[in-house]
């Protein structure tokens, strides 16, 4: 369980803020994020979960549960198709935890881990949509039109937000 720190309130607030920003940024800057045929999907909520793995240190946040909750909301509110992100987000968190245990995390290795996370999320959500016939795009189209721009966008947000969020977690832990 969470020890009584400010993180107890700070973590869920940050999670939901980033969850909403994913949709709102898409609606506010559609020309930049969704210029045909490319589409950048914003996964700020995953960024928050990944940062929590990196920065929480000794305080145990039940991250897998929170990831499933965020994924469930993502499914119901944004896509309207149950059962994709509710499993994909916990998988990404588990992957990040495994990497965190395997080697020391700093700014650059964290960037690499986040790169892998986004690739896994994009691919799994593509296959999910493919099997239920919500998309007919080919794998090559998916790589060029969706995965590449999404990676570029999300890695940029990682670079911009890494140090501010690290500072925020240091503040919240004490």
């Amino acid at each position: 369980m969470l020890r009584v720190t400010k993180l107890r309130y700070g973590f869920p607030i940050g999670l939901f803020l980033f969850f909403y920003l994913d949709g709102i940024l898409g609606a506010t800057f559609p020309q930049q994020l969704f210029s045909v045929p490319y589409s950048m999907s914003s996964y700020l909520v995953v960024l928050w979960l990944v940062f929590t793995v990196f920065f929480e240190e000794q305080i145990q946040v039940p991250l897998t549960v929170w990831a499933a909750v965020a994924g469930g909301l993502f499914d119901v509110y944004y896509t309207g198709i149950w059962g994709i992100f509710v499993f994909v987000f916990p998988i990404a968190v588990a992957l990040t935890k495994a990497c965190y245990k395997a080697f020391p995390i700093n700014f650059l290795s964290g960037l690499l881990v986040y790169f892998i996370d986004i690739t896994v999320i994009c691919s799994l959500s593509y296959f999910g949509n493919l099997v239920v016939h919500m998309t007919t795009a080919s794998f090559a189209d998916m790589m060029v039109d969706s995965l590449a721009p999404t990676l570029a966008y999300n890695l940029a947000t990682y670079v911009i937000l890494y140090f501010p969020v690290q500072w925020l977690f240091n503040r919240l832990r004490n």
Partner: protein
Amino acid sequence: MNKFFSNRRLVIVIVCLIVSFGLMSVSVAIRNKRSTPPMIQQFGNDVVGIVNRVVAWPVNGLKGSVSGFSDLMNTYQENQRLKSQVQELAQTKVHDQAISQENKNLKKELKLAHSLTDYAPVNATVIARTPSAWQNQVIIDKGSAAGIKKNMPVLSGSGIVGRISEVNRTNSKVELLSNSSESANRFAVTITNKNGQNVHGIISGYDRDKNLIEMGNVTAKTKIEKGDKVSTSGLGGVMPAGLYVGTVATTGTDNYGLAAKISIKPATNLSELSVVTVAVRQAQTTN
């Protein structure tokens, strides 16, 4: 690898996979068949939607001030261009008024309450966009409380941009024309050529690379040219007639050389949406 796939883990992974596929197929089936999502989903969406509006407010304020500045820079050029159009528009408007008055009188004479072209507009604001490449969807801030039903057409600017795919009490999802799913954009449309002849058909897909709507399986021999206007025909479902879809960009034959395949340039920029209008058809619907 052996250690990873120990019995317990393997069972958990398989159960998760089965549940995932089960949930996906059930939700797609519900989405295709029922007019509203299950009660719990609706309630959840409504709660999430209310908070969304609160969070969106400062972001939209920021965007508003930035775009306000860039609009100011464009004002002079735009003003010049618009002045020339206004004169023409005033004349068209007066003419339209006279025609719609005449139309109303004639309908009264025929004891016709509502015909296919009548619709009541419901204005809504876009509050979020699905952050996914596979669902080109936006979420708007009006739902069944404002009279919105599934499959109603959604307009923005001068033309149609998509249709309602899910209705909650206070918000709903709009599937855009650019959606790549197989059942997303099947509108009944009609093309009117320069001689006033009509060709009916159904939109059959969307070309992502060229940003064009495709209309296939057209067997009529009527001559269609580039620039001919395309509008909804109002046949079938809840769609009113006469909503502007776009103009014909290219014509050709399909892969088998039998039927004509027509590409349509959408009337509105499908990615730039902030305020949309839902057209609620007033004539009796078939479903």
